[in-house]
């Protein structure tokens, strides 16, 4: 059965998406291949299961896809940028960015195993409070959202809502492989392959789960990013 190759109409899909699908020889078997008899221990990249295209996508999955549209991002102009004359803005940018950098308040938003490493980072062994980072329960008073764990498609609308509730300027740190691109669970269809599909992301922290030092390194990288982007951020 021929794998449909024509790009979707409406031009929105850039060409790069077309050949992103691996060259796949159409397998005729109705069922996906069962015995991975190749080299033991290594799962070969399975051919794209053509069988799926024959099944109509169930209504539930379509309803869910509609809920997973990404968040629209607005960067409002800062008040001091409109009031202060140009020459005064540079020092003002520097001071305000330094203040924001040294008092990042993340939201207590642990999802899965990475949450345990996040809690370990707040505790006395690797103390995040030294950087002025205090976890805060309510999204209204937070600057950073640490997505620590797998974002499933059932949880994605809640993540979007929390992101929209946070006041600007806000940043997102997807912690761990699951939040970056689905991690070990990426092949399951109920898991969102990376939180950057629904909200814009600033600093990715790799690891499964990343060590507390890796999360601290992520925070320091975010601090440097805040200092670099001090004139663009509102």
């Amino acid at each position: 059965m021929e794998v449909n190759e024509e790009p979707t109409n409406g031009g929105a899909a850039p060409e790069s998406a077309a050949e992103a699908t691996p060259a796949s020889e159409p397998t005729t078997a109705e069922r996906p291949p069962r015995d991975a008899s190749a080299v033991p221990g290594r799962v070969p990249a399975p051919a794209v299961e053509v069988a799926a295209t024959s099944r109509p996508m169930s209504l539930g999955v379509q309803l869910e896809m509609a809920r997973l549209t990404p968040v629209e991002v607005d960067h409002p102009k800062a008040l001091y940028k409109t009031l202060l004359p140009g020459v005064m803005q540079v020092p003002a940018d520097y001071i305000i960015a330094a203040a924001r950098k040294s008092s990042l308040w993340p939201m207590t938003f642990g999802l899965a195993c990475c949450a345990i490493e996040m809690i370990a980072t707040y505790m006395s062994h690797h103390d995040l409070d030294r950087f002025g980072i205090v976890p805060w329960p309510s999204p209204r008073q937070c600057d950073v959202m640490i997505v620590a764990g797998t974002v499933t498609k059932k949880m994605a609308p809640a993540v979007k809502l929390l992101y929209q509730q946070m006041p600007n300027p806000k940043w997102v740190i997807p912690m761990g492989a699951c939040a970056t691109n689905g991690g070990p669970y990426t092949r399951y269809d109920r898991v969102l392959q990376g939180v950057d599909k629904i909200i814009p992301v600033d600093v990715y922290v790799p690891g499964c789960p990343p060590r507390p030092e890796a999360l601290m390194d992520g925070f320091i990288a975010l601090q440097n990013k805040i200092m670099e982007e001090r004139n663009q951020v509102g």
Partner: protein
Amino acid sequence: MSPDEKDDKPAEETAEDAAPAIGPVADLFKTALPGVSLEAAQGALDVLITIDGKDAHQVLETAKNDEALAFDFLRNLSGVDYEDAGLEVVYHLYSYTHGHNVTVKAKLPSQDPRIQTVSDLWRAADWHEREARDMFGIVFEGHPNLVPILLPEDMLDHFPLRKDVPLAPLEEWQGEQLGENMANAGHIPPGSGFDVTPSAEGE
């Protein structure tokens, strides 16, 4: 005192012919349920009793109420998809009074699997049955609220653990694209696993 049938079980793969001795629980079941056709076998740890789906409720009710069996703890209830051989609902039971175990396997057709609920016998079954319905589409008649528990509430026709549902394809890396073209996040390339009609993407 561990049930005796566990230690007389020789290593299984050595002798296919000398089938391990079936535990005493099977005989208790046969005496308690003369009318029902059940075939017993000896699994790695417990006795396996295979019955047909229709008289599952009757077997399990006697298992719980009969004082010789007295299985008052439903350990685990899981569905298994044997593709052509149909579906199967497996009940693992344990009795606190006698301390013995049993595995009851109820066979179901794979097209329209229906079985009587056991949530009236054990309240533990309530959530396990809802999960079996989510994953395999087995309908448990008489269940108080058969609402999806692990899947979103409105996903009633997608059963992920069935053998014919494939794994999701690897969507392309979204990181760099996000910068200039937000509309494309979450885009599923054509020809990949999901037959996504453009309208569904909400262009």
